[in-house]
């Protein structure tokens, strides 16, 4: 494809982008969030129409008007967010996307055959909601393979996988490529691209900032192409650990929604002046645990959650905030902030300084407070009255994290602090979190990004299927070990439980 341009009302998502993929090649598309990777892939897949540029398919110029035409040409795509029906079986889900003339039994047979050929182990008769995220992805890949594609597009496929599952995926992809299927692999994870891909197109701000052979590049050189600079290094000083601020004892909760996760006996301690990280593949109980910690879910027994020595299991979010617990949720728009309201008004979700007697809002003080946070945390916004939804993801996250840090919490709970945030903002948010810890605050970080957890945490837990592992000091944690634990396999090594973990149990 050559000279692809796509404009949206506010931004130019793709500007004169050119890309060539050879048969049987694994080609990486690398870029930060918002660099235009997803738009480019949607153009190839026909779900978005470019404003300019042309596309050649096997040497012939083509116009792909919709995904059906793309599939007819032999292009298949696996989206970052799965499009599977939870209540149907694997075979039924695959059947939905295929030619209706095939009987279900034939589809089931083909699934088993394909699964065996590529080592994609999935039982076609299981309902999708019983599958793990990794298995769901396999279903998506099998569904794509049954159309016998010449080009397979994978959008951030590893964001939901354990390190071991990533390795298995790579084996499958290499096998496919060896058979002549081209693969477009979209990611922002440098080490994966260097391990897997033979060619790489780097996007920055909607333009191609370089093409290279990733096997010959270093993380630093790729990162320069991707963000224009090397990521800043964090200062991680030794922890000055104080008294426990958050104690979770044998927290068990039944799921609230049918597709949620039950929590089983989660035990956890966070002390003043340390960062505790919780790793795990999403959907293993993080959401439920965070609801129970923040007070959005108050079904826990009072003593199961203790904040600053007080039983808090039945307290609402406001009461827990009064005890010094501040929380940054994963969803920025709609939970952490009201999209249509200005930044100043969004302060009032968790801050009461500008509210006077009888609940009277002092508008001027509120605006000034917002201006201070905007300035202190370097938020790029139109001012204190700019609507939350008008900010980019990174800037809104800086504002929300800033709002909670500015409250001088005794305990900060942060979920996915840098999810969907550009590298510069992410580095700033991480630095703020560490500064808060150095000031003596207890911090709990829940994240799916292992790199981030290794960078921030003093101790690490892993959550899997609603159970929480013992904690590991950062020095003892390795990617391999954490990866195994992500599958819930920590019970096999009780002897290795660290003194740290033993203390938590006690």
């Amino acid at each position, binding site marked *: 494809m050559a000279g692809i341009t796509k404009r949206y*009302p506010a931004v130019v998502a793709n500007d004169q982008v050119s890309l060539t993929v050879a048969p049987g090649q694994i080609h990486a598309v690398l870029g930060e969030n918002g660099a235009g990777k997803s738009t480019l892939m949607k153009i190839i897949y026909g779900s978005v*129409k*470019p404003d300019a540029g042309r596309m050649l398919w096997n040497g012939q110029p083509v116009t792909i008007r919709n995904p059906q035409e793309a599939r007819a040409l032999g292009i298949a795509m696996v989206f970052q967010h799965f499009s599977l029906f939870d209540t149907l079986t694997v075979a039924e889900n695959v059947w939905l996307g295929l030619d209706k003339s095939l009987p279900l039994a034939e589809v089931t047979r083909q699934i088993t055959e394909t699964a065996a050929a590529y080592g994609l182990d999935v039982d076609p008769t299981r309902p999708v909601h019983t599958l793990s995220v990794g298995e769901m992805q396999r279903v998506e890949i099998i569904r794509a393979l049954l159309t016998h594609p010449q080009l397979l597009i994978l959008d951030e496929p590893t964001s939901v996988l354990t390190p071991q599952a990533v390795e298995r995926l790579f084996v499958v992809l290499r096998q496919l490529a060896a058979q002549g299927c081209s693969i477009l692999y979209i990611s922002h994870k440098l080490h994966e691209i260097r391990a897997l891909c033979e060619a790489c197109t780097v996007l920055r701000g909607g333009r191609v900032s370089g093409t290279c052979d990733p096997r010959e590049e270093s993380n630093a050189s790729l990162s320069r192409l991707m963000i224009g600079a090397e990521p800043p290094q964090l200062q991680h000083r030794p922890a000055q650990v104080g008294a426990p601020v958050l104690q979770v004892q044998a927290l068990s909760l039944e799921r609230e929604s049918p597709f949620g996760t039950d929590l089983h006996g989660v035990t956890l301690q966070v002390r003043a002046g340390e960062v505790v990280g919780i790793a795990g593949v999403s959907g293993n109980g993080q959401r439920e645990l965070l609801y129970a910690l923040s*007070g959005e879910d108050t079904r826990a027994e009072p003593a199961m959650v203790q904040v600053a020595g007080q039983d808090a299991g039945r307290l609402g979010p*406001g009461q827990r905030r009064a005890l010094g617990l501040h929380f940054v949720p994963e969803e920025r728009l709609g939970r952490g902030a009201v999209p*249509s309201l200005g930044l100043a008004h969004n302060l009032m979700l968790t801050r009461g300084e500008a509210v006077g007697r009888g609940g009277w809002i002092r508008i001027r003080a509120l605006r000034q407070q917002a201006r201070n946070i905007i300035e202190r945390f370097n938020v790029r916004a139109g001012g204190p009255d700019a609507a939350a939804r*008008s900010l980019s993801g990174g800037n809104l996250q800086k504002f929300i994290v800033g709002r909670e840090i500015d409250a001088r919490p005794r305990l900060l709970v942060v979920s996915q602090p840098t999810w969907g945030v550009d590298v510069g903002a992410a580095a700033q948010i991480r630095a703020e979190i560490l500064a808060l810890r150095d000031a003596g605050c207890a911090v709990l970080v829940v994240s799916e990004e292992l790199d981030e957890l290794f960078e921030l945490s003093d101790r690490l837990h892993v959550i899997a299927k609603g159970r929480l592992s013992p904690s590991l000091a950062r020095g003892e944690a390795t990617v391999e070990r954490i990866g195994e634990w992500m599958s819930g396999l920590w019970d096999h090594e009780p002897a290795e439980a660290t003194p740290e973990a033993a203390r938590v149990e006690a």
Partner: protein
Amino acid sequence: MLKLELRPQASPVWSVASPLLALAITVVLGSLLFIALGKDPVRGLQMFFWEPVKSNYALGELMVKATPLLLIALGLAVCFRSNVWNIGAEGQFVLGAICAGGVALLADKESSRWIVLGILLAGIAGGMAWAGITAFLRDRFNANEILVSLMLVYVAVQLLVWLVFGPWKDPGGYNFPQSKTFDAVTQVPRLMKGSRVSIGLLIALAGAAALWIFLFRTRAGFAQQVGGLAPAAARYAGFSSRKALWVALLVSGGAAGLAGALEVAGPVGQLTPYIPVGYGFAAIIVAFVGRLHPVGMVFSAILMSMFYIGGELAQSRMGLPKSITGLFQGLLLFALLACDTLMVYRVRWGKTADAGRKAVA
């Protein structure tokens, strides 16, 4: 080709211009309607837009009808802003009228002027209780408040009809289904001689000011609205959704009940089966045309009142059917809903890039 393009941010200009454009469209469509019915469109529009404002007396009548509309709409705005869909203000209005009427029937020659206060409070309590049923069923059993509040309208009307045909029927009323006329002492004080405008107008205007303060200057009002704008954010902040539900329904029920009380103890002066004239439903339109904003609703209440009076005049002077009022109200609401598209989208001529995206969607 005409295309709609998403605006990066909702246009503040169009949030004011859209109701005005909707009004213009209503006028144009109304004129076409008069022509189609074989009537003079100029005369028809005169009935709606000139007759109601041409004299002091006419203006007074305009206010008499605008008062209940504004009161009810103010309450509904609290509901709609907090995502509680109270469609049954008409029923709460009727219950307010019944309770107020019950107190008014107790009055005799010796009663103090202060009984008016009792009448109004009884009206408020009645409306609150009726809306409270909806709140309770929603809170306890998660029953849909749209259906419950709407169905309770018909229950309320039946209750009123039973009372005026049965226990409260005027013994000296020649068997007409109506209560005896309330004693003069129960009459809500009027603002001036020669006009039916009462202190109800002042209460409604004070209500608009109070609502503005509540919505935009108090934390309770902020919390109330967050529940409507982003329920997950309200939960995160710790604002109680149950409290928001009860506040919304009790405030709107109370306001509708007060409107009912002002109506029976004011212009009507007795209980009849004709107390419900659709103010509770028209107020929904008033609330939305007024952008759920206290100031906007003052204007839209006056406009809707013009439609009521214009409809009656068109009926008596031009021989048009009664349904012309409802037709104009409906035209205005639909035109507004269509015009609101312009707040979020802008119109472009010619082919744009979004064609492909729409085809897929």
